[in-house]
C-alpha cells in the first residue's frame, strides 16, 4: 500500500459506450443495404464497396503517418465514410471513381479540417457531390447488367409510371445502396434500438418533405406519388444515415428538428424544381453548412431559467 493511488476529477466511472462501438454499429446497420446492393447489382457492387472502404481507410492511415499523428483508423469512422460513399455510387462507375471519391472524402473533407469531429460537411456526401460535378456522366449513368433506362425517380419526374412495390423492395436502378427502402429501414431500426440515432432528424425531414410535396408537387395528397418519392432516390439512406451524422448535424434537440425541416424543404425544392430528379445529397450538405447558425438559435435554456419542461 505504499504506492500512491490514481487520482482524477469526478466522475470516476465511465459508460462502456465508445466512439469505435458507435461507428461499428453504423457499419452493421449499413450491411442490409450493402447486402441488397450486391444481390441487386451483382459482384461489381462488392468490388466498388471494397475499393472505396479500402481507399478511405488507407487515406486516413497514410495521412496520419505522413503528418506523424496518432493513427485513428481503429475508430472505424473511415470505414463508415467509405461504405456510405460506395452505397452512393452507381454500380457501373469504374473502380477509380470510388478511389478518387474516398481520397477526396477523407483527405479534403475530413483530415484537412482536423480529422474526426472537425469536418463541417458529411465526408461521403461531400465526395459524392464532388464526383457528381466532376464526372457527371459517369455518376448519372445507371445502366448496368441488371437494369437499363432511367431511375424510378427520373421516370417519375418525366411523368412516367413507376412500380412502387419494386421501389420499396429495391428492384430498381439507382446507386448501390439507395434502392431498397426495406433494407435501409431495417438498418435504421437497429440504430434506433441501439440508441445511436433517434427519430428527430429523419422524422422531421420526412414529414416536412411530404408536406412540401403535397403543397407544391402538383398531385395534392396522392399517396402513390408520395410513396414513390419516399422510396425513390437517396431519401431514406440520406434521412437515416447521412442527415443523422453526429459531426455534421446540430447537437441541440430543437436544432435537430429545425435541421430536419430544412432538409425536407430543400430536398423538395431540388427534386421538384431542379434540373435533376435527385436532391438529397445537396440538401444535406447545404444543411450541414447552416449547422452552426441553427445551433446558435436553438441553444436550450438552462434549468431554472425557463427550460425545465422536457
Amino acid at each position: 500500500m505504499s504506492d500512491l493511488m490514481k487520482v482524477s476529477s469526478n466522475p470516476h466511472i465511465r459508460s462502456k459506450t465508445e466512439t469505435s462501438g458507435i461507428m461499428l454499429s453504423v457499419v452493421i446497420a449499413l450491411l442490409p443495404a450493402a447486402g441488397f446492393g450486391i444481390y441487386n447489382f451483382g459482384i461489381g457492387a462488392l468490388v466498388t464497396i471494397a475499393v472505396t472502404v479500402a481507399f478511405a481507410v488507407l487515406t486516413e492511415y497514410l495521412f496520419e503517418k505522413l503528418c506523424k499523428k496518432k493513427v485513428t483508423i481503429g475508430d472505424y469512422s473511415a470505414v463508415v465514410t467509405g461504405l456510405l460513399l460506395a452505397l452512393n455510387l452507381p454500380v457501373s462507375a469504374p473502380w477509380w471513381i470510388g478511389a478518387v471519391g474516398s481520397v477526396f472524402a477523407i483527405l479534403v473533407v475530413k483530415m484537412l479540417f482536423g480529422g474526426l469531429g472537425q469536418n463541417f460537411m458529411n465526408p461521403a456526401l461531400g465526395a459524392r457531390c464532388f464526383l457528381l460535378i466532376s464526372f457527371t456522366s459517369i455518376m448519372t449513368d445507371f445502366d448496368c447488367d441488371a437494369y437499363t433506362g432511367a431511375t424510378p425517380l427520373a421516370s417519375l419526374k418525366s411523368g412516367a409510371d413507376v412500380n412502387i412495390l419494386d421501389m420499396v423492395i429495391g428492384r430498381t436502378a439507382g446507386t448501390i445502396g439507395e434502392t431498397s427502402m426495406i433494407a435501409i429501414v431495417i438498418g435504421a431500426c437497429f440504430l434506433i434500438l441501439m440508441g445511436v440515432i433517434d427519430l428527430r432528424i429523419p422524422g422531421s425531414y420526412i414529414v416536412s418533405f411530404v408536406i412540401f410535396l403535397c403543397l407544391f408537387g402538383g398531385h395534392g395528397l396522392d399517396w402513390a406519388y408520395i410513396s414513390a418519392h419516399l422510396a425513390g432516390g437517396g431519401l431514406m439512406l440520406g434521412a437515416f444515415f447521412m442527415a443523422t451524422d453526429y459531426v455534421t448535424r446540430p447537437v441541440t434537440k430543437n436544432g435537430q428538428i429545425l435541421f430536419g425541416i430544412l432538409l425536407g424543404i430543400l430536398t423538395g425544392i431540388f427534386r421538384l424544381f431542379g434540373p435533376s430528379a435527385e436532391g438529397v445529397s445537396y440538401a444535406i450538405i447545404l444543411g450541414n453548412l447552416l449547422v452552426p447558425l441553427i445551433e446558435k438559435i436553438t441553444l436550450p435554456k438552462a434549468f431554472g431559467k425557463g427550460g425545465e419542461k422536457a
Partner: protein
Amino acid sequence: MAKLTFHGGIHTYDGKDLSKDKPIRSVLPKGDLVYPLSQHIGAPAKPIVEKGDRVLTGQKIAEAGGFVSAPIYATVSGTVKAIEPRRVVTGDSVMSIIVENDGLYEEVEYPKVKPLAEMTREEILERIREAGVVGMGGAGFPTHVKLSPKEPDKIDYVIVNCAECEPYLTSDYRRMIEEPEKLVGGLKVSLQLFENARGILAVEDNKSDCIEILKKLTKEEPRISVKTLRTKYPQGAERQIIYAVTGRAINSSMLPADAGCVVNNVDTVVAIYHAVCEGRPLMHRIVTVTGDAVADPCNIMVRIGTNYHELIDEAGGFKKEPVKIVSGGPMMGFGIFDLDVPTTKTASALLCLTQDDVSRMEPGPCINCGRCVEACPSRLVPSMLADYAERYDEEAFVSHEGMECVECGCCSYVCPAKRSLTQSIKSMRKIQLAKRKK
C-alpha cells in the same frame, strides 16, 4: 401516480448490492483522531483546546468561526496531541486538532433537553448550531443557516433527500431500514420551524422497502408524506429533487428557499434529531466502505476523525489490489492518493475499485454525438462548454450558462469519446467563482 423525476440524468451500474444488506456496525477507533477545522462550508472553526489538554467524548474542541460555520466535538476521550495542518480527502492540508485516543471513551454529560413541543424556534436552531450539524450529503453547509431563511412562513416544503442516487452508496438506505423513527423525528423537528410547511420524504423507487417502512411510520402524521422518485442519477441533486417533488425549478442564483423549500439529507436529519431531542452533538456518521477491491463491503458507524485505514481494516482489508480509491460516491466523490486521511462530517463512502475507467480509457475527439446534452440535468451543452473552458473563452463559457453546471459528472460518464468534460467545466467554474469573490 406517475413517478416523480427530472429531465436528463443517467442510469449507471449501481453497485449497491455489494453492501445494501449489511447491517450498520460500529467501530471503535484505535489510532489518533484527526479533526480538520474546515469540514463545512464557511469560516473554519476555532480551536478552544490546547496541546496537552485532556478531552472527553462529546466535548467541544473547536467553536464556530462565524455565523456560517460549525463547532467540532471530540469523539473519543484522550489528550490533544497537536494542532497542526493535516491532509484531508481533497489533497489539501487543513489545520486540524489531533487527539490521542486513551481507549476509555469517557463521555461528558449531555445537557437535559426540553420536550420538543415546548421549545421555541430560536431554541431549536441554537441546539442545531451548537451541535455542529452540517449538510452530511457532501456539501457540508451549516444546517442552522439552511434552516434560517429570511421568511420562514414562506417555506411550504421541508424535503428529506432520501434519494441516495450515487452508485454504490448504501449508508442512507441502512439508516432508513434500521432507524427510520429517528429520521421521522428529525423531520418533525424541522417542521416545527416552518409552520406552513409539509414534510416530504423523497425516496427513489429502488428502495421500495424503505418506502413501505416510512409510509407505515408516517401514517398518523398529517403533515408528512412519502414520495416515490424514479431511480436515476442525479435524482438527489438539490435542484433536481426540488423539481421532482414540487415542479419548481431554481437556478444557480437562487436558494431552495426561493422555491419555498428546505432540503436536507438523511444523515443530516438524523443529526438534527440527536441534537434537539437527545442533546447530543454531531459525532458519528455512517460510511459505506465498498468496491470490488474490498474483502467485506459494509456500512460502518464511524466516529468522526477516524483514519481511513481503520475503515478498510474494518471491512476486512483488500482482497484485490485497489487502483483507485474514492472518498464519496463514484460520480462526485474525491479520488484520493493515500488512505492516511480522517473521516469528516461529509464523508459518505470509501470506494475502492480495482480498475480506473478514467486512466484506462483514452480521450478522443468529440464526435458531437449529443449524449452529454441528453444527460445534462441542467440542460446545458457540455461539449461546447468544455470547448470554451479548454480554449479559456470566459465570455462564451458564461454566456452559454456554464455557471449553471452542478458538476454532477453525467456528461463525462456518457461521453463515448471519453472526454473529461466535467473536469474542464469544473475548472473554469472555479476560476470564475474565484473572480467573483474578488
